[in-house]
């Protein structure tokens, strides 16, 4: 399998997109390619993109599933604006993706599937591969993937239809050849997944993968092969991590560092289900998971568990957040710690259930009855979900309050390399229950944090009642007008106090200048990349990314004042810009996009250029 290195072209980064039918295993090979790239020492960012239907009719546009990743020897912050190489497994995949492939881009197609029926299903009147102009436009590589795979597997005991299903790995093998990716991580994956249970499947997929790789080697010696140096990163142990995985691990770590038992309750919903599934697999950590009958119940279970002394967590997406709303009010007035995760997707209603959006910010901030401000934080990348979930644990327990943790489908499903933290270095969270040897006043507050102290059932002498009715400091029901006003202020002030515990806001670039870009959540990579590129061009531009959306950092107002203009890119119709305008009386310019897709770096650059010219 060795190839003369002189045929390699050295590149800094590349963007590859795999597209095929939902049943073609595109997510799987995308992930494998990602793992190989991580293993090869490259930095990576990924964008899985699948349809809402599990299996839309085969061969149709509705059923196209894609996976794009960018990998490189430099720091990679986004999955790339447009692919350098597109693998299209069928006409529908070609049709729905080709407009993104720039002229001269590499196009690998499975010609076996370019039959009349499939062309028709994709809405092609004639075969685009027979169009001379089309052929000239791209660096076209036509592979009869199905036939080649079946040939490679002539010795395999699998049924012919099962043999054909290995064609995705044949394609992967070919692309691994082109980009010099190692096969070992994928071979190891086959062994872990099927080695024991279905050795003949592991064997067939390995054969297909290697055959695809060999084809690259023998097919055409003149074909370019690319080589990427390792990314220069801090030494240490690395792994690949997705946002939802990082959330799960952060919750486990947070509970351990606070010495609390973790109870998670949830109701399945895309894209939050992996949190329920991930934690349910961690029983050996003593984690209790409850699949509740709906999102209301999930929130109720969490509140009950919190009352009983567990660190409780729920995760859902927009529609589930709506259902939880009344209960979140109860958690607020009773002042119980609960971590409420919203992995956002396109809304309203069922909206775009498998596409990304950041349109639940105002819901997180305000969607409750009564005056009910709550802490809201947002993760900005897959690995940042780890830090953010620990931060959510810290806030919930230190301030005895529900916390809203936001991520989005892009961050949750995307993956990147992660410098594995040392578990022993995770700071402990100091959250004590009431001491039974002291008098207990259920809503007496810590003068610094304004947090109350919880007393949990089972402790003798601390029996007390809590509930949704307004109460006074001693916990007794109290409807006095002044008391209600005081309590409403206290609850709000307590949330405000969290700002005292935040580090100074980090600016990307100079401390003052012409344009300040303010972002939050999953737009981090695109904003940072665009800002960096423009700084290199000599523009006076800086960016900052907010983790804390309520309370906002105390220094934010001053920072804003030091810039001539402020622009706020968001995947919604301008929700953070509305808040910044209201809070700082600044003419924050909204830069919005609601297509279910992340920002392209080029889109942001164009907009920033406009503001600076």
């Amino acid at each position, binding site marked *: 399998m060795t190839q003369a290195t002189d045929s390699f072209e050295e590149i800094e980064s590349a963007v590859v997109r795999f597209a095929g039918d939902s049943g073609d295993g595109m997510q799987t090979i995308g992930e494998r390619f990602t793992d190989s790239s991580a*293993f090869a*020492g490259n930095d990576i960012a990924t964008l899985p993109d699948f349809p809402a239907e599990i299996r839309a009719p085969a061969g149709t546009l509705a059923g196209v599933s894609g996976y794009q990743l960018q990998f490189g020897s430099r720091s990679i912050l986004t999955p790339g604006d447009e692919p350098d190489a597109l693998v299209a497994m069928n006409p529908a995949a070609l049709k729905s993706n080709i407009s993104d492939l720039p002229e001269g881009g590499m196009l690998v197609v499975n010609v076996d599937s370019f039959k009349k029926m499939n062309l028709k299903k994709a809405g092609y009147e004639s075969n685009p591969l027979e169009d001379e102009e089309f052929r000239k436009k791209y660096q076209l590589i036509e592979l009869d993937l199905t036939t080649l795979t079946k040939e490679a597997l002539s010795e395999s005991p699998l049924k012919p239809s099962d043999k054909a299903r290995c064609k995705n790995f044949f394609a992967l093998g070919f692309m691994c050849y082109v980009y010099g990716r190692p096969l070992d*991580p994928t071979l*190891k994956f086959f062994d*872990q997944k099927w080695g024991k249970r279905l050795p003949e499947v592991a064997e067939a997929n390995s054969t297909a993968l290697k055959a695809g790789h060999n084809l690259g080697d023998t097919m055409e010696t003149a074909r370019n092969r690319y080589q990427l140096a*390792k990314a220069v*990163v801090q*030494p*240490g*142990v*690395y*792994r690949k991590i997705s946002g939802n995985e990082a959330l799960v691990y952060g919750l*486990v*770590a947070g509970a351990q560092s606070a010495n609390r038992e973790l*109870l998670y*309750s949830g109701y399945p919903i895309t894209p939050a289900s992996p949190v329920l599934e991930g934690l349910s697999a*961690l*029983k*050996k*950590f*003593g984690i*209790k998971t*409850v699949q*509740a*009958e709906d999102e*209301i*119940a*999930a*929130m*109720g*279970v*969490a*509140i*009950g*568990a919190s*009352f*009983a*002394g*567990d660190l*409780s967590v729920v995760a859902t997406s927009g529609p589930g957040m709506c259902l939880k709303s009344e*209960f979140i009010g109860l958690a607020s007035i*009773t002042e119980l710690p609960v971590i409420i995760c919203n992995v956002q997707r396109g809304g309203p209603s069922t909206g775009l259930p498998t596409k990304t959006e950041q349109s639940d910010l105002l819901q997180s901030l305000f969607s409750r009855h009564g005056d009910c401000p709550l802490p809201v934080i947002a993760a900005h990348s897959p690995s940042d979900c780890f830090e953010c979930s620990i931060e959510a644990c810290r806030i919930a327990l230190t301030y005895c309050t529900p916390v809203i943790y936001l991520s989005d489908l892009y961050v949750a499903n995307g993956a990147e390399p992660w410098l*594995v*933290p*040392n*578990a*022993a270095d995770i700071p402990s969270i100091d959250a004590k229950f009431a001491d039974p040897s*002291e*008098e207990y006043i259920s809503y007496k507050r810590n003068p610094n944090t304004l947090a109350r102290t919880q007393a*949990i*059932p089972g*402790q*003798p*002498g601390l*029996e*007390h*009642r*809590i*509930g*949704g009715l307004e109460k006074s400091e001693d916990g007794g029901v109290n409807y006095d007008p002044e008391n209600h006003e005081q309590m409403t202020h206290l609850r709000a002030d307590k949330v405000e106090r969290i700002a005292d515990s935040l580090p100074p806001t980090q600016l990307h670039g100079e401390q003052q200048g012409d344009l300040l870009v303010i972002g939050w959540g999953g737009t981090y990579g695109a904003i940072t990349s665009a800002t960096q590129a423009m700084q290199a061009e000599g523009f006076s531009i800086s960016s900052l990314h907010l983790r804390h959306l309520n309370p906002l950092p105390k220094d934010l107002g001053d920072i804003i004042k030091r810039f001539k203009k402020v622009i706020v890119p968001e995947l919604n119709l301008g929700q953070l810009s509305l808040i910044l305008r209201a809070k700082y009386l600044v003419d924050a310019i909204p830069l919005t996009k609601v297509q279910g897709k992340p920002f392209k770096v080029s889109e942001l650059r164009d907009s920033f250029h406009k503001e600076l010219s």
Partner: protein
Amino acid sequence: MSTTNTEEGSLTKKDFVTENDVRWCPGCGDYAILNAVQRTLPELGVPKEKFVVVSGIGCSSRFPYYMNTYGFHTIHGRAPTVATGVKSANPDLSVWMVTGDGDGLSIGGNHLMHLLRRNLDINVLLFNNRIYGLTKGQYSPTSEVGKKTKSTPVGSLDYPINPLLFALGSEATFIARTSDTDQKHMVETFKAAQAHKGTSFIEIFQNCVIFNNNAFDTVTGREVRSEQALMLEEGKPLRFGENKGIRLNGFDPEIVELQDGDDESDLLVHHSKTNNPAYASILAQMAYPAFPTPFGILRQIEGRETYEDALHSQIKASQSKGEGNLQELLTGQNSWVVE
């Protein structure tokens, strides 16, 4: 701070009374139920700090404020979920849930169903006054069809739900009915509920003096009780009144009058532990005036594992092969080293 003596037998009713003024209407049936619960808890051998009373919203759901235990007055209809959270987090607690006919069977019907089928070891007291008390007298899902209330001036349209059948359909493992008029029977029933491992569902006929006064008089009134109510006793034939009993004719129950010297062996004998739900279903559907209305434990199924026990034993089983190591979890199985 009060020092609590948690030793068995040393608690009294007084230990469970709070300083809060009880704010139900004078004459409300809720007082009698509160009294019965406060009389029951000290006799259960459970330390006081282990009791948790969880409720929803309604007149009935004010209950936790009057119990000197840990308590949680939650939101309308959702008490089963909070109770599930408490019990799942700490199975060692004795959890009592209080709900109303509207709270438990209208807005919270779904949650109640799931609590019952999960079989958490929680005692559910459903105060059925066949009316919405707290919102001032609209009809409820247990109100008889044609009920005239402020929201249904010419009569309600929907057919009522039978709480006992609801519980049966939800796979409840303990189903009983009692009445606010009968202290002794309430205390007995509550004790049996506590002794049962699994969710215990108790419907309590509760009189709302203001909005639905005397709703249960035909079966709980002193003069008519013996003729129109059927007190279930384990292992005993179904007898009521002077000389009446219930027997089966095919799948249908029928009333028989026993003459002097008649044999009781024809009569149905009460076996609450029968696995087949048909018998409990027949009892649950018997109601005055066609039949006497039954009181007591209709059904009691033992040996079904509780949710919280299953939850915790899965964890224990998994941990018996070694507890989780955070560093191993974070590192995962596919890490690489950058020098």
